[in-house]
């Protein structure tokens, strides 16, 4: 199940989360602008608030293992993000935590299982379908790509790279979609032609993971 030298460890996960805090701080305006077009202009603000709160909480109460980290992240996102993104990303990490129970490091298959659990949680919480113009339109293609990569024997870095690439394609594919879930759905046809903010933040999440484990 992959070389343990390139496995996902507690430290790697913490690095990923630190990168995410930077990424969402740096993309605060971009995500908010996307949400201004078809939502309520807060997605970037929400994500930055959430992931900086995650940093503060992890520093204050360092969790012992990967599962505890994800539990802490979930709880922090749930109580600090609000809106649609809070419960969705919160549920993602809650399920991810469950998938990591009893593990001190994750191999390639574990990483795919982690994302599968997390993305399944998003789907269950939000009840969106592919094509509804939501974060799932980035997450589901990413999951498919990662699953295929893992089955094809890729290492973790390769899996995450493929996932990030698929997420990006999925994110771009939201542009011509008409939203059927979330706030953008109130716009009907006027939601067409805009990139979904949640798909964008999900893509950033995967790109950050790829970058973290590529190094």
């Amino acid at each position, binding site marked *: 199940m992959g070389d343990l030298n390139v496995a996902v460890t507690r430290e790697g996960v913490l690095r990923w989360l630190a990168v995410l805090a930077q990424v969402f701080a740096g993309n605060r305006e971009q995500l908010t602008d996307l949400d201004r077009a078809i939502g309520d202009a*807060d997605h970037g603000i929400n994500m930055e608030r959430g992931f900086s709160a995650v940093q503060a909480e992890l520093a204050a109460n360092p969790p012992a293992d990967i599962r505890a980290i994800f539990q802490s992240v979930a709880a922090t996102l749930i109580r600090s993000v609000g809106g649609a993104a809070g419960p969705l990303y919160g549920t993602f990490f809650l399920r991810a935590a469950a998938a990591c129970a009893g593990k001190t490091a994750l191999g390639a298959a574990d990483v795919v299982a982690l994302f599968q659990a997390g993305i399944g949680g998003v789907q269950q919480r939000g009840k969106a379908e592919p094509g509804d113009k939501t974060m799932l339109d980035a997450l589901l293609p990413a999951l498919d790509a990662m699953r295929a990569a893992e089955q094809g024997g890729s290492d973790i870095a390769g899996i995450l790279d493929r996932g990030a690439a698929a997420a990006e394609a999925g994110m771009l594919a939201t542009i011509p979609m008409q939203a059927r879930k979330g706030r953008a759905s109130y716009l009907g046809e006027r939601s067409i032609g805009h990139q979904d903010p949640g798909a964008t933040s999900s893509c950033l999440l995967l790109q950050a993971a790829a970058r973290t484990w590529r190094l």
Partner: protein
Amino acid sequence: MKKLINDPHDAVRDSLAGLAAAHPAILKVCFDPVYVMRADAPIQGKVAVISGGGSGHEPMHGGFVGRGMLDAACPGQVFTSPTPDQMEAATCAVNGGAGVLHIVKNYTGDIMNFEMAAELCQSRGIEVRSVVVNDDVAVEDSLYTAGRRGVGTTVLAEKICGAAAARGYDLERVAALGRRVVANGRSMGLALSPCTVPAAGKPGFVLGDDEIEMGIGIHGEPGRKRMPLLPARELVAQMAEAILADLPFREGDRVIAMVNGMGGTPLMELYLVYGELDRLLNARHITPTRSLVGNYITSLEMAGCSITLLKTDDELLSLWDDPVLTPALRWGI
């Protein structure tokens, strides 16, 4: 962005501190997590009624906490739904043993956060029921979307459910009443100008000099269409027609009519709008038996208004007339 605030990040907290300072006899504000609760809660044996949502819609919901209306309100960040820990803490704080009703506006974020909170409360052994308000006729309803937004009817549902709880209705009955209000209430709004979320620093949308957004949401979400500004009479007619056709309201109906300001509209204009609405309803032989004109569910400093009509019967009217003592709605006490 020009606002009377200190730091955009503290705006909600600072404002809640002012709410608490201004109305110590009515309510108190808890921080961490943030919620507003009746000064005298919990009331043993009474169903508690809670609502919550993003901030920026003041007086909703904190301004409706008090005798005869809400037991607690959970304010989120500006235009961002509150988080489950807030609703959980508020529910525990005001639970008087007879269960708690959550009044939720139909936005994906609100729905999911309240859902998670309800799960947490149930697991603590507190009976929770939820009523989802989805009264905005501006949004085409469809099984394939998030459905209609919750807007003005929320205010009426909070008042009526609060009165019922004060009368001693049990949880199922209060919840059923809330659903009846939702089933009989319809709203629509328009914007003359946008609003700026403090942390965002710039307007959520831009309108031309003579342009309005018909069917605006309360977060500055775009509505049905951009159109030129018309005389108030015609704008009222467009909103009222959409509302009346939807339920539909019929000759002989008695309604509670609310003309709500979005935050930046002078009262002079709101009364003018009410005058036009009153005339139109009377011409249709629909009787506005009660009225509410003012800022009740706002969008920061947005200019514009919304109209809400609630078809009533003797029970709803009598609950509406029951005493209420909150910062924003008060009579009989």
